[in-house]
């Protein structure tokens, strides 16, 4: 696929992950043909799922995007009643598709757990999918994966969350309750 045809999500993914999306999409399409010989290219939804995941969007954000065609804010996610169901559907669909092709590309077994997205990005770079023109400086801040948000349904206090993580060896984590 020529570079000028990259969709906005692909361009964002390329900027944020510093991966060569054109080469990666071509290679994943090759892998897809091993599973689905009658297809030629990745589908638009497969490409969007891949790119949004490479941008570090959460599965909830991606599922919301598929339904509403926009990246949600936390307020949107909190107000979405079917978030978990939507996320499970997207996960189930993509585990047979993009996740499967990626595992093949990374030389993993089909039934192995897919690595986390930061890990996938690292492994793809090791395999030579780094975009040549990408300056390392552009990624300094974005590689700083040191904060995670958890959207929880149910009764649990900040102290209980902290205690559970502490008991599981996560002693140096700072936790804030936002809502």
């Amino acid at each position, binding site marked *: 696929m020529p570079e000028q045809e990259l969709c906005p999500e692909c361009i964002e993914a390329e900027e944020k992950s510093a991966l060569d999306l054109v080469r990666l999409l071509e290679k994943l399409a090759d892998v897809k043909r091993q599973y689905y010989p009658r297809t030629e290219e990745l589908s638009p939804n497969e490409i969007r799922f891949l790119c949004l995941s490479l941008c570090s969007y959460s599965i909830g954000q991606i599922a919301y995007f598929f339904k509403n065609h926009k990246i949600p804010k936390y307020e*949107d996610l909190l107000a979405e009643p079917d978030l978990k169901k939507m996320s499970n559907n997207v996960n189930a669909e993509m585990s047979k598709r993009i996740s499967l092709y990626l595992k093949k590309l990374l030389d993993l077994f089909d039934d192995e757990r897919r690595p986390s997205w930061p890990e996938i990005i690292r492994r793809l770079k090791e395999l030579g999918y780094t975009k040549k023109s990408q300056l390392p400086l552009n990624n300094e801040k974005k590689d700083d*994966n040191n904060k995670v*948000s*958890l959207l929880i349904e149910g009764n649990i206090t900040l102290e209980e969350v902290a205690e559970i993580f502490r008991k599981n060896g996560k002693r140096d984590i*700072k*936790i804030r309750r936002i809502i």
Partner: protein
Amino acid sequence: MTNIQDNNKQLFVLEGSSEDIEEILALFESGELSELLGVDVLDAGLVSESQMSEINRIQIQNVPFVDTNPTRTTEEQEAFANVLLKKCRREGYSWVELSKILEIVQRGYQATEEIIASAFRELLSSNMTGAVKLGADDEDDEDKFEEPELDTEFVNSLTREVTGFYEQKLKL
């Protein structure tokens, strides 16, 4: 704005080493995080800078109003918010409303500088997708429209004024 507090959902932010954070993400993706915490984890994701700004804004909305008397009276807070409003207008942020500034001033009593700055950043950039008219007399002149950039130093100066507003009185 969506009401985000009328259900049983909670939002937490965890900060740690990238190894720990990625491990937590992996636990979520495998479904083990819900088991570990004993509650339903609906979503987990890395937090970007823009999301951090939203988080801080949500936080200031959840900072409780407290009775600041005798630190500052309501009248003093309103007068001070008016001063800040005029400063915003002078800098070209014409869409900023007094009520929004007053909310930051009132909740700023208990908020950290980071949260106050984020609230101002969010407020001042809330209309930046639209163009700002520079020349009111030349309505047809397209060249007179431009998109402003958020002035970080101005945000910082407003933040310092809010924290100083309470500190100054406490010293008296």
